[in-house]
């Protein structure tokens, strides 16, 4: 933990326990006295929101597993049974299904926050890497979970994804066979996906513990991107951030509740209310919204294997980001040129999401007959997703390293405490320092 422990055992029992298992000290140092920069904004509340979402998913998931039947003949009906006959089953199932979307919404905001404020830079590279591992595990868990209701989209989505892995040379087909538990997607697949869907959240919980550990060694970053210098820059986590995070969580739950209670199917696909039928393929196979950008990257590449490489490369890129960024300034508050590229990047990810939801040959601008270019019409989602995919990679592999070397950042403030109003727009001219000398 950052700094020496300030925990003082108060009762005799606490003193006795503290010399044997200092668990109360650990809790105190972690969530009570932990010194936290006092200038964190609301983008920093999503860590707490994510911890809560993981908790909700695990608790609702354990209850659902008590009623769910992992068998191709029973799975679809057992979900309906949960929603119709289990006490508050509609609530538990609704929280879990919508919760996956909320979990991803929160994690994307958390990741964009990390990108914008340079949270991945030294000394927080390991913290970032662990976050990337959590994100990968989340994708795997969500994918396995989406197969369990055994609807049409569950089944055919799983067929698409498992076949993708089969395109990997030499080992691919073997991995696919192993995942399927046979030579087609069938009951053994559903069984092992259920098993893995139950296992992975606990792996996530373990990596989250490491993530928090890695956070508590250097301490939180902050919107200014400068290190904490003295005690004046920080406040104890409790009550300052427990109350602020609680407020943010409560507002987040309001939005979550709006979906669960009033639009439980808004984020899902109607086709998943049709029981899986291997002989009937849905007209459009689309993943859940949170995987659409990667699906768009996959389909942007004409070659199957190259598409798979591009898709995994898009996530893999995040793992090397700390070493691609050459800028010594953490926060993009003081990097106006880079900030613009970043905003385009956010927009780019949203456009990729749009592309993933549409059929590749659909016209982007309806009614406009664009020219044919290479293998597809220019006015089609194929080309839009190709341009957007290209920007995705260019942003990380070209813009990020080049901008760090060429841009002139704004002066960054001396410290967190002064000046109190730190935004560049209101920073007094005197309160400056040389950013190039900072790490």
């Amino acid at each position, binding site marked *: 933990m950052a700094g020496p422990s300030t925990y003082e055992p108060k009762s005799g029992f606490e003193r006795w326990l503290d010399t044997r298992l200092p668990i109360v000290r650990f809790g105190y140092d972690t969530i009570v006295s932990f010194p936290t920069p006092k200038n964190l904004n609301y983008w920093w509340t999503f860590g707490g929101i994510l911890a809560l979402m993981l908790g909700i998913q695990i608790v609702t998931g354990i209850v659902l597993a008590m009623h769910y039947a992992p068998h191709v003949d029973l799975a679809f009906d057992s979900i*309906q049974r949960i929603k119709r006959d289990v006490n508050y089953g509609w609530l538990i199932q609704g929280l879990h299904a919508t919760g996956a979307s909320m979990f991803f919404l929160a994690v994307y905001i958390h990741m964009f926050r990390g990108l914008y404020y340079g949270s991945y830079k030294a000394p927080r590279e390991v913290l970032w890497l662990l976050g990337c591992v959590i994100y990968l595990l989340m994708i795997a868990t969500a994918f396995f979970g989406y197969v369990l209701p055994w609807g049409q989209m569950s089944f055919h989505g799983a067929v698409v994804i498992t076949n993708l892995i089969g395109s990997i040379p030499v080992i691919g087909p073997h991995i696919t066979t192993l995942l399927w538990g046979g030579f087609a997607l069938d009951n053994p697949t559903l069984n092992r996906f259920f098993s893995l869907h139950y296992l992975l959240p606990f792996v996530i919980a373990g990596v989250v513990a490491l993530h928090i550990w890695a956070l508590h060694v250097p301490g939180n970053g902050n919107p200014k991107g400068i290190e904490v210098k003295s005690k004046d820059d920080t406040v104890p986590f409790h009550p300052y951030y427990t109350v*602020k995070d609680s407020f943010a969580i409560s507002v987040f739950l309001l939005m979550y509740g709006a979906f669960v209670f009033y639009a439980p199917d808004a984020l899902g696909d*109607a086709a998943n209310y049709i029981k899986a039928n291997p002989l009937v393929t849905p007209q459009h196979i689309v993943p859940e919204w949170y995987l*659409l950008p990667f699906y768009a990257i996959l389909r942007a590449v004409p070659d199957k294997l190259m598409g798979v490489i591009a898709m995994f490369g898009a996530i893999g890129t995040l793992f090397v980001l700390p070493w691609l960024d050459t800028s010594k300034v953490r926060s993009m508050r003081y990097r106006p040129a880079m900030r613009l590229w970043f905003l385009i990047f956010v927009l780019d990810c*949203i456009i990729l999401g749009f592309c993933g939801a549409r059929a590749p040959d*659909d016209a982007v601008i309806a009614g406009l007959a664009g020219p044919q270019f290479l293998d597809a019409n220019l006015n089609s989602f194929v080309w839009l997703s190709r341009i957007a995919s290209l920007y995705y990679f260019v942003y990380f592999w070209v813009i990020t390293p080049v901008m760090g070397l060429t841009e002139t950042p704004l002066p960054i403030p001396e410290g967190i405490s002064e000046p109190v109003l730190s935004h560049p727009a209101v920073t007094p001219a005197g309160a400056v320092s040389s950013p190039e000398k900072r790490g």
Partner: protein
Amino acid sequence: MLRKAIAFAALGLALVAVPAAASTEGYKHREVEWSFTGPFGKFDTAQLQRGYKVYREVCSACHSMSQLYFRNLGQKGGPFYDPEYKNPNDNPYVKALAADIQVPDIDGETGDAIQRAAGTADKFPRPFPNEAAARASNGGALPPDLSVIAKAREGGPDYIYSLLTGYAPTPAGLKVGTGQHYNAYMAGDLTAAWSGDPHHVPKGGFIAMAPPLKNGLVTFDDKSPSTLEQQAKDVSAFLAWAADPKATERKQFGLGAMIYLFLFSILLWFSYKRVWKGVAH
């Protein structure tokens, strides 16, 4: 503040935009004013009762509803709920409705396959013993199970209503195969069957189901006019209820939860302001 607003707006846009756009070739379904849409919407009990009658007398000849039990008809929010009988299995009306229907069973004494009157704990019986029998009786087409059909189609009850009332006269120049029917709201591509102007292929598709409803087909117990429109509307509402029988309970529970969370958020906001008072940040 403005930048935050823009960021949130962008996120909101991302959320709104994501539901996959299904490019159905049929006409966009008609919009119906249902009693059960919106955060405070409730099912119209009389409409559900009429809808059940349409299902029972017309649809159930070919379509199963395998997720439904007779007791569901008498549960809270159901078509025949009676507050006097909290336990739907005691509801005499539901018992009588069930007893009208024969369900297959095994005689416990002899082991013979028998038919007996249904009870409240029985599922709605299937019209055909298996898929092959269902296809054989329907020109090769399989009538889908209707339990969650209102959720399994984009547009839900609006789409079902549109389909049931969408048997338009076949456009001249469209070759309709044996056992097929033209429906303006059915998804499909009619190019291959169209001999007219290739730039004006009619929208819609072919459906194996013959027009199931017609004026006066069902006699409603509440003297509602038995028009095709009315039958279609009522059975669509019934199917919407069947697909989501807990919808009303969910919305009522949600109202309490949302009010609680809203007040809790206000309380936390003031706690936050108070705790942070005097801390420059």
